[in-house]
């Protein structure tokens, strides 16, 4: 059982499904059913991987390694440790949510729509599994393509402008990172191991300090754009606002997480010296991002835009935690990212529902939705509370670990992170107030969640509760890989608290 190429299957199963979809293009219902089955299959695959490799007899990391371009030392090598596994499962889960998210956006060209969703799942799984730097860069660039078309074709409003904005922002960063990858390959080619792009080898590469810093800057710029870190976040609010619901789910749930994941997996271990050097800068930007995005979110007039800014704030906190040098905060950042994917995924799905029902998501036509649609209201409030880090829900576990970890390294940063919990609540309560409560400002009817939407939100809510109350298994998965990374990057730091 364990010998099958599971990782390859995880990546290429959705892609394969995407390629089959055009055959069904005349029949929207069949497209939906097929995409749903494909996403369920992907989820089943990833759960199977959990059972096989992280079950009672754990066997992590799983490695698949084949030669690809031998002259350049490029290999097709995938590796899945606990950290990857968390994000792989998250990706399949969000993928399932994407196929359930909307029966409105997919009306025009269902085959293309679901094909793009599945293709983006494949590329994201690739990012989480690649352990060859060249392969990683390839997936990193490839993930832009489906999302670009998803926004450009199926978006709302000025979708082409926004899609280009998204693409140019990401491609600029990606290009620099690609150059840095090539540079690393050249530097490694002169080294003792010959030409190679293997992460495990490259982390031990002895780089001159300045070179390391420049390359780190190139990598981090690319990650920062994707995360997104203030001040290179400008693409995100626009992209979220105009993207179809599934696009928003992919953006918030997956693309942003690839940035954080890549920072942990590649950015830090490849350039430990530069990571130390730039840590104060990244911490500052992250904390500024937390407060800045929270303040800006309060003033928003569109539900999706508000949630988009909340993503920037949460991810800013995650970045500050990742570079802090505390393992506890690092683990918290992982949980926070997962939790954020679930909570903001739920909020985006519901915001998409608002747009479909009322034709607009502006606050001035909302209000009073609780009375019109109690199930919708309960789900919306639940996601808001998970975002607001109410203990018992997933957000709290991440934020608590981050705060407690940050306090061990710097009480200033820790104090600011604590204060962030208050400014976060300010805009989240405003969101609840203006959407759910008060008099209804639109005379249009507002149907409550139907079975499909209820199922989607229930899945997300159960995950948020489980992660909030029993984060143990997830933390255990993340523990080993993060321990290795932290030992490599911060060898001087004392283990444990």
């Amino acid at each position: 059982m364990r010998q099958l190429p599971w990782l390859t299957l995880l990546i290429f199963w959705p892609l394969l499904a995407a390629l089959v979809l055009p055959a069904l293009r005349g029949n929207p219902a069949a497209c939906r059913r097929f995409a749903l089955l494909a996403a369920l299959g992907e989820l089943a695959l990833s759960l199977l991987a959990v059972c096989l490799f992280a079950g009672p007899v754990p066997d992590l990391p799983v490695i698949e390694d084949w030669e690809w371009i031998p002259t350049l030392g490029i290999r097709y090598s995938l590796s899945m440790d606990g950290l990857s596994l968390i994000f792989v499962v998250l990706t399949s889960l969000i993928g399932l949510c994407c196929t359930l998210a909307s029966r409105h956006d997919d009306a025009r060209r269902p085959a293309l729509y679901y094909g793009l969703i599945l293709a983006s799942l494949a590329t994201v799984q690739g990012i989480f599994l690649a352990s060859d730097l060249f392969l990683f860069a390839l997936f990193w660039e490839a993930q832009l393509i489906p999302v670009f078309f998803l926004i450009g074709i199926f978006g709302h409003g000025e979708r082409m402008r926004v899609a280009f904005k998204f693409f140019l922002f990401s491609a600029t960063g990606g290009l620099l990172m690609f150059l840095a990858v090539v540079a690393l390959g050249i530097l490694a080619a002169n080294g003792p191991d010959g030409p190679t792009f293997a992460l495990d080898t490259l982390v031990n590469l002895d780089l001159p300090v300045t070179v390391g810093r420049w390359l780190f800057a190139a990598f981090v710029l690319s990650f920062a754009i994707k995360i997104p870190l203030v001040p290179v976040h400008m693409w995100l609010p626009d992209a979220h606002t105009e993207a179809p619901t599934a696009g928003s789910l992919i953006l918030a749930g997956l693309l942003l997480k690839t940035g954080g994941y890549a920072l942990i997996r590649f950015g830090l271990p490849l350039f430990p010296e530069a990571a130390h050097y730039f840590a104060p800068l990244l911490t500052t930007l992250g904390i500024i991002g937390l407060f800045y995005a929270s303040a800006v979110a309060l003033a928003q007039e569109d539900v999706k835009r508000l949630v988009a800014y909340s993503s920037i704030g949460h991810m800013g906190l995650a970045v500050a935690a990742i570079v802090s040098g505390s393992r506890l905060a690092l683990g918290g950042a992982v949980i926070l990212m997962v939790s954020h994917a679930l909570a903001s995924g739920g909020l985006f799905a519901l915001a998409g529902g608002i747009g479909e029902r009322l034709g607009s998501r502006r606050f001035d036509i909302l209000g009073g939705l609780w009375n019109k649609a109690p199930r919708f209201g309960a789900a919306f409030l639940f996601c808001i509370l998970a975002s607001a880090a109410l203990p018992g829900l997933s957000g709290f576990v991440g934020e608590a670990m981050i705060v407690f970890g940050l306090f061990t390294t710097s009480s200033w940063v820790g104090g600011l992170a604590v204060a962030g919990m208050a400014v976060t609540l300010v805009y989240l309560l405003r969101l609840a107030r203006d959407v759910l409560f008060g008099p209804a400002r639109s005379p249009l009817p507002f149907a409550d969640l139907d079975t499909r939407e209820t199922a989607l939100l229930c899945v997300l809510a159960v995950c948020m509760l489980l992660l909030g109350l029993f984060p143990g298994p997830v933390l255990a998965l993340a523990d080993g890989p993060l321990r290795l990374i932290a030992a490599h990057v911060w060898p001087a730091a004392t283990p444990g608290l």
Partner: protein
Amino acid sequence: MTTLLALMLLFPLAGAIVQAALSRSLSRPASGAVAALAIAGSLAAAVAAVWNLGVAPHQLSFGQWMAFDGFSAQFSILYNRLAGLMAVTVTFVALLIHLYSAVYMREDKSFARYFCYLNLFVFFMLVIALADDLVFLFMGWEGVGFCSFALIGFWHEELPNVDAGRKAFLMTRVGDLGYVAALALVIAASGSASLSGLTAGIDTMPTATATLIGFLFLFAACGKSAQLPLSSWLPDAMAGPTPVSALIHAATMVTAGVYLLMRLEPLLSIAPDVGAAAAVIGAATALYGAACAMGQRDVKRILAYSTISQVGYMFLAAGCGDVSGAFFHLQAHAFFKSLLFMVAGIMIQAFHEEHDIFRMGARLRRAMPGLFILFACGAAALSALPLTSGYFSKGRTLADAVAHPGPAYLLAFILGIVAAFLTALYVFRLFFVAFFADPADPAKLVSEPELSRMERPLWPLAALALVYGFVNPPEFMGLKPWLDAYLAGTVTPVPPEVEHAELFVEILDAGLALAGLGLAWLLYRPALRPVAAPAGVFTTGLGLDAFYRTRIAAPYQRLSVHLWRGLDEDVLDGAASGAGAGIAGLSRFVARFGSARPSTTITTLLGAVAALLTWLALRLT
């Protein structure tokens, strides 16, 4: 024991889940009955657990919550006599309030949502009462904050109610920042934060650290208990249904801050500065609340300020390190204040949602004599008329302050004494105006049989308000102080100085209460046809709320708009599109050199050759 504690917690939680899951199919009576049964089950478990409870605390854990890299948090319980009594008090008052609510909410559509939140609240409150791990306690702490938000804004069609709930949630969250920071400090030192762990490690903790942690917890307690400077959310919290005000904003949640300080007693005992600060804050708040209550006309707002004021006395006692005294006042207050709130609820419904006491008057007394007696019991206890529960419990807190040496405690005592006089004054102002006056502009009195049905659950509270003081009478009366004796092994025993001071304080307190009663009669007796004074500084709570609104909330809102429109859209987005436009312009400029016209092409070619030759020439020379 484990089973009983688990049942105590699970009953209300299960009740909440049932209400949420079956919200559509439950009928109104069934919904109320299920909710009340859940609380009754919890009360039974609480009583059974505290029955024959020894002095030794029980420590147990329902499992691990999170563990990572040396940090761990457990679902753990520290069950001792203090926690046991707190759990009984909470569930007992909650049960009566549930019974009352079943009638009170008789016309409301969303009864299932109401009882769901109410049950959930009891669950979280019990978590606060029982938790050992401070992270687990924080779950209850934030959970009650959320329930309070949801119930204040229960009638959410009207935005002012929602805003009041939002204010409560935000202000208590600001206090909670202190809690999280304190947790972080404790965890950074030892990897986990629990009450038992803190107590065990108290000998090795430096005073400076203990003081810092203590102040942070005190800040959190001030937020939850609506003490200065975080008090201004409580008066607005009255926007919620009245039983909610009775349960959450009088009897239980607002006392959670004091309860936290009681549970942290070992920490406070090595950080005397924190205790002194708590005492002074408490006494100052007691005076502030009493003075502001004088300026109100809304019966619920009077009681809200009165709650702020009475919780201040609990802070005073807790700051003096007298846990059993603080707990005594907490219980007495829970009984008489929830009684008063529920009476106020009936008064308001009797006048068809009229809150203004200056539109009530003697007709109410004549129409509902039972209600009048209930109110009189509560008022007597709140104003500390001799031999009522409030008399003994408040006297005890003042005696604590007298017995403590130091100018801070002297100041606290003086503030507390003045507040005690004002308390009697505002209570009897309310009493005479609402039940004796003959208003010029009376509200319409309605008579419904349900109103008297709501009185029934209140009689036990009225009895307790009158006689509960004899559970812990002062030493000079020669009766057995049962509560002190019961808690003797659990908390620091009462120092003898307090007992010596009690005689003096009780006499003074009785005099002040009677003087307040007399002055109130002089000022507000029906013959004078009292009218409300025009709104003044006390009506608005000394402008504290306005200060937060205009100095913090409004500037933050302006800042947020400014950041968005000014910085985010103009500068950052502008820079991005500017860069894009710049590159496009450059590309057009460059494109001009390569156009299809022969003259341009030749010019470009010659120019390039010239540049190349110049460069070569420079290189060669």
